[in-house]
């Protein structure tokens, strides 16, 4: 059985694999596209509660733990929580803006937390664009310096780029920058409203032309990597074909939100996913296991996820496009509706087809 088969089976069986923890909404940058609701109120989880949470997740067999924010590195107890998670054997992912991770902090991060990968947000291929979007002068140059420090410390770095109207003309340059640095690159074409429902980030959503260009670049890079893989993985392919015969339970769920994954905000509220902000319960009141097994809201989310899965599979014109029920729900109140970012991608894809 492959790992992909196992994940499919876990999704079918509602086996929790992956949890994202938002440690704080405080941040040392002020990004225009940030989706966090910085005005959210609540009682923050204590370090002891985080340790309890991490123990519970380890006991439930959760493998992947993401520490996010806000900016997780500005959270005062980040090191206590990160090192505790490491000791409990998680594959740790850090989602950061990289602004605070200078050489000394990078070494400490590797030593104490040892993340599998540290994802840093990049907003442009040059200082003018990046700094415009982070609204902090000098943040691009500092990030470039910090990335070098992270690499020297032995940290695997991934660049996460939120595609916007301000940086969409730099897609080629962003790819070149990532290649030059030898880094993984993820360009996210979907700009979302804030978690509080404020639409301001949508005002710089990428244009149709920007999305088309991203699509073209993505296809070209995919084709290049496929050719490379075909030459090196020929033997593995035959094995995979044999393994495919062991059909795992198929799942009709659209995604892993609430079936293999959960998100926890700084105040202990638990959600199916960082994008799907339906409150399932609070870690102040219940254990994660209790929420996982007994939350009526979670049962509804799983049922909705199955319906979305069936609806997306039967979609005639846009079945291949990534669809996020969480973003749909945040924007319109319905997890089934077409949201702005999806409409934009669909439009760009349709135009590409027309051109072909």
């Amino acid at each position, binding site marked *: *059985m492959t790992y992909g088969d*196992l994940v499919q089976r876990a999704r079918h069986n509602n086996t929790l694999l992956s949890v994202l923890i938002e440690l704080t909404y405080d941040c040392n940058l002020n990004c225009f596209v940030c989706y966090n609701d910085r005005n959210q109120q609540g009682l923050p989880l204590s370090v002891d509660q985080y340790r309890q949470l991490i123990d519970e997740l380890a006991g439930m067999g959760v*493998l992947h733990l993401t520490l996010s924010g806000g900016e997780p590195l500005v959270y005062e107890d980040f090191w206590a929580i990160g090192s505790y998670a490491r000791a409990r054997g998680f594959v740790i992912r850090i989602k950061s803006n990289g602004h605070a991770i200078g050489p000394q902090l990078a070494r400490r991060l590797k030593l104490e937390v040892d993340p599998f990968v540290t994802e840093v947000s990049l907003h442009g291929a040059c200082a003018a664009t990046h700094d415009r979007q982070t609204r902090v002068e000098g943040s691009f140059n500092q990030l470039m310096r910090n990335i070098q420090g992270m690499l020297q410390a032995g940290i695997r770095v991934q660049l996460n780029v939120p595609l916007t109207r301000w940086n969409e003309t730099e897609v080629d340059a962003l790819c070149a920058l990532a290649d030059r640095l030898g880094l993984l690159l993820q360009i996210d074409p979907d700009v979302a409203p804030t978690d509080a429902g404020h639409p301001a980030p949508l005002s710089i959503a990428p244009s149709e032309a920007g999305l088309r260009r991203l699509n073209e670049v993505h296809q070209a890079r995919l084709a290049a990597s496929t050719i490379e893989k075909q030459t090196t993985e020929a033997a593995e392919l035959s094995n995979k074909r044999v393994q495919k015969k062991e059909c795992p339970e198929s799942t009709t769920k659209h995604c892993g939100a609430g079936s293999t994954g959960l998100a926890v905000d700084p105040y202990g509220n638990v959600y199916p996913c960082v994008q799907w902000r339906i409150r399932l319960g609070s870690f102040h009141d219940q254990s994660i296991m209790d929420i996982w097994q007994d939350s009526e809201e979670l049962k509804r989310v799983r049922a909705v996820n199955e319906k979305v899965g069936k609806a997306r599979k039967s979609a005639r014109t846009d079945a291949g496009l990534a669809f996020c029920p969480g973003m749909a729900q945040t924007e319109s109140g319905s997890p089934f509706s077409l949201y702005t970012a999806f409409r934009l991608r669909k439009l760009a894809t349709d135009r590409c087809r027309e051109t072909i």
Partner: protein
Amino acid sequence: MANIEKIYARSSEVRYRILEDQAVVVRQDVAQVFVLSEVGARVLELLDGKRKLTDVRNLLLLEYAVDEAQLEQDLNEYINRLKEAGIIHCSEDW
């Protein structure tokens, strides 16, 4: 069995969980994921850096209905595969 008195432990770069009766093993340094069978997962759990391989063999003999000679052969082969994959180290190699 050549290394029966030796002690094996999971590599410090390895993270793993038992999932659906199988072990998902991640080698962080090379970003590789392995899926081990139920028995393989049990072997990996027992290789804790404290038990000798002979203790692991004896525990497996208690837990599984298997011929001793066959188990020794299979375990030996399996240990070598785990070593080659960088998932475990022999204590003498530390």
